[in-house]
C-alpha cells in the first residue's frame, strides 16, 4: 500500500517536474522584449503577489513538514487551507512525504506492562535521533482518558497501516496516535456453534482500498465441547469492518488444514495481505509455511517456504516485510542460549513461491532474546535477556546497538514503527462520539529530563 502510494507520488512529482521544466524552457525562448517591457510593472506585481496567498503547491510543501497535530490546528486558518488539509490526496501524500523526511528521527510506538502486580499496559511513543551521540531517548505516554481501569490491557500491536494501529487486548482498539483517536471495537461476534469453543486466536489488521475500510481478521481454533478435543489444523474466521463497525463470520474460513506457530510481533502487511508463520503436517513432519489473508478479496492463501531452519527447538523464525513492503521475508535466529549467526531470508518475488533466497547472515549476538521489530532491510529491534528494548542497526558503516532504556515484564514488550498520519477513524457522524481522545504526557518511567 505504502509503496504503491509512494511510487505513484514519485511518478506524479517527476511528471510535474518535467512538464515544469519544459514549460519554463519554452517561456524562456520567447523574445526577451516582452519581459523587459513589463519590467516597470515588476515591483507592483511583486507587491501584489506577496499580498496574495502562496501557490497551493508551496503551501502543501511547507505543511507536509509539520506534525499532524499542527495540521489539525491549521484547518482553522482559512477555507482554502481547510480544503487542502481535508483533501484525500493531500492526506495520502502527507503520509508518504512527511514520514520519509524523518529519516534520522526514529519513532516507535511501544506497549509494555511495567509492573508484575497489575495488568495495566502503557502505550508510549519513544523518539531519538540516529545522529545523536548523547544517546538521548525521549518518551511520552499516550493516556486514553476512559481506559485507565486496572482491567484494561493491551498485549499485541499491529500497524502502522496508513498510520492506523490495531491493539489486541481488552478492549480491542484501533487507534491513530497522531490524531489522538482511540476507538474500541465491539465485542466479538461468536462464530463457533454451540457445540464448540476456542482456546487460541490470531489476528491480522489491514486496509481495503476498494472500500476505504480498515479491517481486523481473527482466526480461532475449534474444540469440541462434547469430547474436549481439538480439530487439528482447522480454524474459524471473523472479520471486523470499521465502516460497518461490526463483526461478521467469514463463510469460507480457512479452506485447508494449517497450524500457526504464534502471532508475529513484526507487522507483516504486504500487497493487501496480512501473514502468519505456520506449518503443515506432512505425515508427521512439520513443514514451515506462511498463511496469508487478503483484505480486499477476503480470502486465505498458503505460501510454501523451503527448509530454512534446522528445528523449531533451536531456531526461532519471524516474518517481516521487505523492500518497502513489496514482499515478505523471514528472520531465522537462535533460541536463547545458542550462539549462532542468524539468517535473513527473502521472497524475491512475492507472487512466486520458488523465489525464496537467503539474503544475508549476521554474526551471533549474545544479548538478544526475541525479535520485536524489523525496519528497512537491516534494522532490528530486539528484546534483550532482561527484557530491555535494543535497537540494532546492521548497516555496514553505521552498525550499532543502542539500549532504548525501556523494559517490559513477562514478555509484554511490543513495538511498531510510529508514523504521523492524518487518516481519521471517523466514519460519519454516528460513530464520532464513540472515539475516545487521549492526552500525551511525559513518561515517568523514562524521563531523561529529570
Amino acid at each position: 500500500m505504502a509503496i504503491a502510494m509512494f511510487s505513484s507520488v514519485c511518478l506524479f512529482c517527476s511528471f510535474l517536474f518535467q512538464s515544469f521544466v519544459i514549460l519554463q524552457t519554452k517561456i524562456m525562448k520567447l523574445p526577451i522584449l516582452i519581459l523587459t517591457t513589463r519590467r516597470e510593472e515588476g515591483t507592483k506585481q511583486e507587491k501584489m503577489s506577496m499580498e496574495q496567498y502562496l501557490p497551493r503547491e508551496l503551501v502543501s510543501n511547507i505543511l507536509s513538514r509539520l506534525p499532524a497535530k499542527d495540521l489539525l490546528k491549521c484547518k482553522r486558518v482559512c477555507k482554502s487551507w481547510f480544503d487542502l488539509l481535508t483533501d484525500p490526496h493531500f492526506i495520502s501524500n502527507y503520509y508518504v512525504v512527511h514520514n520519509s523526511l524523518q529519516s534520522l528521527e526514529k519513532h516507535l510506538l511501544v506497549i509494555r506492562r511495567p509492573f508484575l502486580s497489575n495488568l495495566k499496559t502503557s502505550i508510549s511513543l519513544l523518539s531519538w535521533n540516529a545522529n545523536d551521540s548523547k544517546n538521548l531517548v525521549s518518551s511520552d505516554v499516550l493516556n486514553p482518558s476512559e481506559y485507565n481501569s486496572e482491567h484494561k490491557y493491551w498485549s499485541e500491536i499491529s500497524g502502522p497501516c496508513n498510520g492506523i494501529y490495531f491493539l489486541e487486548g481488552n478492549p480491542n482498539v484501533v487507534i491513530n496516535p497522531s490524531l489522538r483517536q482511540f476507538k474500541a471495537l465491539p465485542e466479538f461476534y461468536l462464530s463457533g456453534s454451540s457445540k464448540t469453543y476456542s482456546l487460541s486466536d490470531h489476528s491480522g489488521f489491514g486496509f481495503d482500498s476498494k472500500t476505504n475500510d480498515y479491517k481486523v481478521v481473527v482466526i480461532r481454533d475449534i474444540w469440541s465441547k462434547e469430547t474436549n478435543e481439538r480439530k487439528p489444523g482447522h480454524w474459524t474466521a471473523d472479520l471486523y469492518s470499521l465502516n460497518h463497525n461490526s463483526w461478521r463470520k467469514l463463510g469460507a474460513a480457512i479452506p485447508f488444514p494449517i497450524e500457526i506457530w504464534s502471532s508475529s510481533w513484526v507487522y507483516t502487511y504486504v500487497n493487501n495481505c496480512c501473514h502468519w508463520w505456520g506449518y503443515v503436517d506432512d505425515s508427521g513432519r512439520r513443514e514451515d509455511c506462511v498463511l496469508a489473508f487478503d483484505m480486499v478479496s477476503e480470502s486465505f492463501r498458503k505460501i510454501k517456504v523451503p527448509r530454512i531452519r534446522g528445528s523449531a527447538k533451536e531456531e526461532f523464525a519471524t516474518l517481516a516485510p521487505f523492500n518497502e513492503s513489496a514482499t515478505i521475508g523471514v528472520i531465522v535466529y537462535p533460541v536463547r542460549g545458542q550462539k549462532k549467526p542468524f539468517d535473513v531470508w527473502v521472497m524475491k518475488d512475492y507472487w512466486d513461491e520458488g523465489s525464496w533466497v537467503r539474503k544475508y547472515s549476521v554474526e551471533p549476538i549474545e544479548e538478544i532474546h526475541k525479535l520485536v521489530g524489523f525496519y528497512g532491510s537491516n534494522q532490528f529491534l530486539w528484546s534483550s535477556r532482561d527484557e530491555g528494548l535494543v535497537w540494532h542497526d546492521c548497516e555496514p558503516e553505521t552498525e550499532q546497538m543502542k539500549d532504548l532504556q525501556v523494559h517490559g515484564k513477562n514478555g509484554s514488550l511490543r513495538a511498531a514503527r510510529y508514523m504521523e498520519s492524518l487518516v481519521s477513524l471517523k466514519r460519519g457522524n454516528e460513530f464520532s462520539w464513540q472515539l475516545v481522545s487521549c492526552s500525551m504526557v511525559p513518561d515517568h518511567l523514562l524521563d531523561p529530563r529529570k
Partner: protein
Amino acid sequence: MQKTEGEESKAENEEVKQVTLMTSDGVKMKVEISIVYEMEIVRSFIEVNDADHSVPFPLPNVSSHTLDLIIELVKNEYDDEFMKTFSHDELKEVLVAANYLNMKTLLDFIATAIANLLEKKSVEFIRNFFNIVNDFTPEEEAEIRKTNEWVFQDLDED
C-alpha cells in the same frame, strides 16, 4: 562571508565564469556559474542553447534583493544562523523565488525553515505570517476548534 586570502587571490587570478542575470527591478547581476547551475530554470536554458553569457538572462519574478539573499545562502552553504536574520517577507520571497528558479536544495531548506518557524504557533501567528484573511464565520471557526480542542493547548508564544 569573509574570504580567506588564498581564495581572494585565486578569484583575482583566475577568471571565474559568470552569468549575468537581470532581476525584476532591472538590476543586472553577475553570478558565478556554480551558483547559477543550482537554478534549474537557468541551467537548462544555458545548456540547451549554449547562450552568450554576456546577454543578461531575465528573471522577471525575482527582485535584486531576493537574488542577493539567495546568492549569500548558497555561498554560505545554507547556514541556519544567516537565515535567522531574514524577515518573514524575505523568507517568503526566497521561497517563491526558489520554486520559480527550480532550486531543489534551497526549496527544501527554506520550506523546512518556515515549517520549523510555524510549528507550535497559534493560528493567528500563521495567518499573520502568510497575510491570510480569516474567511470563516465565528460559528464555523468555533465548530472546527471544538472538534479538535486538544491541539490548541501547549502552543508557544507568538
